[in-house]
C-alpha cells in the first residue's frame, strides 16, 4: 500500500532534480528588466550601514566606529537571520580581532557563538568579564553559551549576575530559559507571565523584540507543560509582535507539526524562504501531508546542505540530522549526525532528535548519555518523556 506514494515521491524527486539541473546553467537574460536578485533588508537599514561603512573606511583606525558598524551588522544578521552579516561584522573588526578590549571580546564571542565555536566564545567572554565584571552583555551572552552547551548550573549563575545589572524582563527571561529546561518550567512560566504583565509596552523596536522573545519562550514552556491552548495563544501573540522572527516561526512550526497541522505550516512558511531551518519545517510538513511541492522543496534543502558541506561547515548538524532521518530515511546516518551534534549542543531539540534517530536505528544504547542528561536536568515535556521511556525499555 505504501509503495505507490513512495514511488510517486521518487519519481517526483527525480523530476525535480532533472528540472533543477536543467535550470542550473548560466544564461544571458533577454531583457534588462529581468530581476536577478532581491536584496534582503529594507533600503533604510542598508543606507545606514553604507553610511557607517563609508565613515569607517575614512577613519580606519577608529575602534568606536568599527564597533558600531560591527554591532549594526550583527543586528542585521539577527533580523534577516543571515550569516553573511556576521562575516561582515568580523571583517569590520579584523584590525582588532586579537585585541583584548572587552567590547571586542564580547562581539567576537557573539560571532563565534553563532558559528557554534562555543569553547572559544566562552573563553572570550570570561576574559571580558575578568576585565569588566559589570558587563551585562557579556554575562548574558555567557549564559546563552552555557545553556546551549548544557552547562545549566553555569547559565543559572550567569543569569543571577545579569539580574543585578539589567532590566527585569531581561533578567527574568534569562533565568526562565534556564529554569524551563531544568525541571521548573511551571515556575518559569509564571515568572514570565508576571514580568510581561509588569514591564512596559513601549513601542521601541528593541523592546518589542524583547517581548517577542519572552513570549515565544513562554509558549515553548506551555508546550512543555502540556498546555497546548496556551502555547497556541502565546505563539500567536508573539507572531503579532514580530511576524518575521525566524526563531518564533520555527518553534511554532514545530508545535504545528507535532499537532499534525501540516497545512498551517505550509501557510506559515513560504515556499521560497531563504532560512534553512524554516525550509526544513516546511519540507517536513509537505512530505507528511503529501503536498505537491514536497519533492522539489526537499531537493532545494538537499542542495543547501550540500553547499554547506562543500564549505566544510558543520553548523547545522541538528537540522541535517532531522532532515536525514525524516526525508532521507537513513536512521543510522541521522544518528551519527545527531550524536555529533549532541557533543556540541545540548538543548531539548538536540536531545529529541538524538532519541528519535536512535529509536529509528534500533540503537537505544547509543543515546545513554542523552538519557542520563534528561534524568539529571529533569527536563519536562510529554514527548521527550515518551521517547526516553521507549529508549530505556529493552
Amino acid at each position, binding site marked *: 500500500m505504501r509503495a505507490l506514494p513512495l514511488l510517486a515521491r521518487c519519481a517526483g524527486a527525480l523530476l525535480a532534480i532533472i528540472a533543477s539541473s536543467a535550470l542550473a546553467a548560466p544564461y544571458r537574460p533577454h531583457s534588462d528588466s*529581468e530581476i536577478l536578485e532581491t536584496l534582503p533588508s529594507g533600503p533604510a537599514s542598508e543606507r545606514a550601514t553604507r553610511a557607517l561603512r563609508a565613515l569607517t573606511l575614512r577613519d580606519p583606525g577608529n575602534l568606536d566606529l568599527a564597533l558600531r558598524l560591527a554591532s549594526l551588522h550583527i543586528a542585521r544578521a539577527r533580523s534577516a537571520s543571515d550569516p553573511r552579516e556576521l562575516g561582515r561584522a568580523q571583517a569590520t573588526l579584523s584590525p582588532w580581532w586579537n585585541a583584548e578590549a572587552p567590547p571586542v571580546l564580547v562581539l567576537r564571542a557573539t560571532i563565534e557563538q553563532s558559528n557554534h565555536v562555543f569553547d572559544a566564545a566562552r573563553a572570550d567572554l570570561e576574559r571580558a568579564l575578568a576585565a569588566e565584571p559589570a558587563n551585562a552583555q557579556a554575562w548574558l551572552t555567557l549564559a546563552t553559551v552555557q545553556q546551549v552547551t548544557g552547562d545549566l548550573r553555569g547559565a543559572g549563575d550567569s543569569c543571577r549576575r545579569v539580574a543585578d545589572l539589567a532590566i527585569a524582563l531581561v533578567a527574568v527571561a534569562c533565568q526562565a*530559559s534556564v529554569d524551563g529546561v531544568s525541571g521548573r518550567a511551571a515556575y518559569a512560566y509564571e515568572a514570565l507571565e508576571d514580568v510581561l504583565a509588569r514591564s512596559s509596552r513601549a513601542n521601541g523596536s528593541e523592546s518589542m523584540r524583547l517581548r517577542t522573545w519572552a513570549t515565544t519562550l513562554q509558549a515553548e514552556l506551555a508546550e512543555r507543560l502540556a498546555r497546548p491552548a496556551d502555547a497556541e495563544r502565546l505563539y500567536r501573540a508573539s507572531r503579532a509582535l514580530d511576524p518575521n522572527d525566524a526563531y518564533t516561526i520555527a518553534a511554532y512550526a514545530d508545535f504545528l507539526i507535532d499537532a499534525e497541522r501540516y497545512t498551517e505550516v505550509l501557510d506559515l512558511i513560504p515556499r521560497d524562504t531563504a532560512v534553512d531551518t524554516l525550509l526544513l519545517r516546511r519540507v517536513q510538513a509537505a512530505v507528511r501531508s503529501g503536498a505537491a511541492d514536497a519533492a522539489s522543496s526537499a531537493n532545494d534543502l538537499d542542495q543547501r546542505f550540500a553547499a554547506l558541506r562543500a564549505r566544510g561547515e558543520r553548523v547545522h548538524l541538528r537540522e541535517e540530522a532531522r532532515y536525514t532521518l525524516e526525508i532521507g530515511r537513513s536512521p543510522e546516518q541521522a544518528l551519527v549526525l545527531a550524536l555529533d551534534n549532541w557533543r556540541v549542543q545540548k538543548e531539548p531539540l538536540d536531545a529529541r532528535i538524538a532519541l528519535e534517530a536512535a529509536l529509528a536505528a534500533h540503537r537505544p544504547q547509543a543515546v545513554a548519555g542523552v538519557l542520563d542528561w534528561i534524568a539529571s536536568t529533569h527536563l519536562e515535556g510529554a514527548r521527550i518523556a515518551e521517547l526516553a521511556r521507549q529508549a530505556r525499555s529493552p
Partner: protein
Amino acid sequence: MMARAIASLLLLSIASTAFAHKPSDSYLMLHVDAAAIDGQWDIALRDLDAVVDLDANADGRIDWGELRQRNAEIDAYALARLALSSDGQACPLAITDHQVDRHSDGGYVVLGLHARCPSRIDALGVDYGLLFDIDAQHRGLLKLETASSTVVSAVFSETRRRQSFALQQPSTFGQFRAYVADGIGHIAAGFDHLLFLVALLLPAVLVRNGRRWEPVASFPRACRSVAGTVTAFTVAHSITLSLATLSLVSLPSRLVESLIALSVLLTALDNVWPILPRRRWQVAFAFGLLHGFGFASVLADLQLPPSALALSLFGFNVGVEIGQLVLVLLLVPLVYWVRDTRAYPRLGVICASAVIALLSSGWLIERSLDVRLLPF
C-alpha cells in the same frame, strides 16, 4: 541605553538556532589544458552589491540592466582578487563573458575566465582574495580539473588564501594511449561485440552451395571475404560512434543494447538457417551501425572534457579496431586450418552458432525486459 544594547545582543544570542541562511560562497571552476586555463567564476549578486553597489535605482532589487552597467567595475574588483600562477610565473587572467545563474541561495553573476601561462602548467598557484575584506566568513570553493578530468576540490578562506596544486597533466600522447587502452578494454570485455564478430567470421572460410557449406578454395580468397566484412563493420560503427559522441544522434541505451543482442542472435541464426542477405559485408555494415551506438555509451560514461573529444574519439576507435584485429588474427587462421574437416561446417559453424544464438537470446531478454539471467 544599557537595556537597548543588551536587548539586541541578547536576542542575537538566543536566536542562534534560527541562523540558517547559506553563508557567502563563490564557486570557481578552472579547467587546465596544457598552458591554458579556462574557467567560470560564480559570485553572489548580494556579495557584489556590497562592494560595487549594483542596485542603481535603490529599489531593493538587482536587474540585468543594473548588473550590465557595472560590468567593468565587477571585472576590476574580481580580477584584483584572483591571481593564477604556474611555477611562480604569473598567468595573466581575463574575463571573457558575463552571464547569470541561480544557486540554492539566490542570483549569481557567472564570469567566464581565460588565462594563459608561459609554459605547460605542472603546479598551479591560486591566490584568492575575493570579499575577505568585507566578509571574513566568505569562502571560495574551487573545482580544478585537467584534461584527464581529475578533479581537485579546495576551499579558500580568510586564513587560507594561497594554495598550490600539483597537476599530473598527461601528455597528449599519454592521453591518446589511455583512450586506445579503453577501446581495447571495452572490446575485450564486451562479449556481445566479440561473439557478433565470431558469428560473422565463422562461415568466412566456407561458401554456401545450395543447402551445404563448402570450404573456400584459397587463403587469399578467405582473407578477401574477411577483410570486406571487417571493414564494413568498422566503417559502420565508426560512423555511429562519431555521431553519438558528438551528440548529433542519440538513442536510448536500453534500446541500443537490446538491438545489439538481437543483431548477434540473427547473425548466429543465419549461420544455421539463412535469413539475412547473402552478402556478409552488408550484414556487417547494417549491424555495425548499431554496435557503434553501444561503443558511444561507453565513451560517454568516461565523462570526457569537450576539449579532448576528438582525441578520445579517435583513440577509443583505434583501440576497438586493435581488439577486433587481434580476434580476427586468432580466429581466421584457425578456422581456415580446420575448414575442410568434415566436422567443421556442422560442429564448428552450426553448434558454435547455436551456442551464440542461445547466449544472445538470453541477453536480448535481459536487456529488453530489464531482468538478470546470465552471470555476464
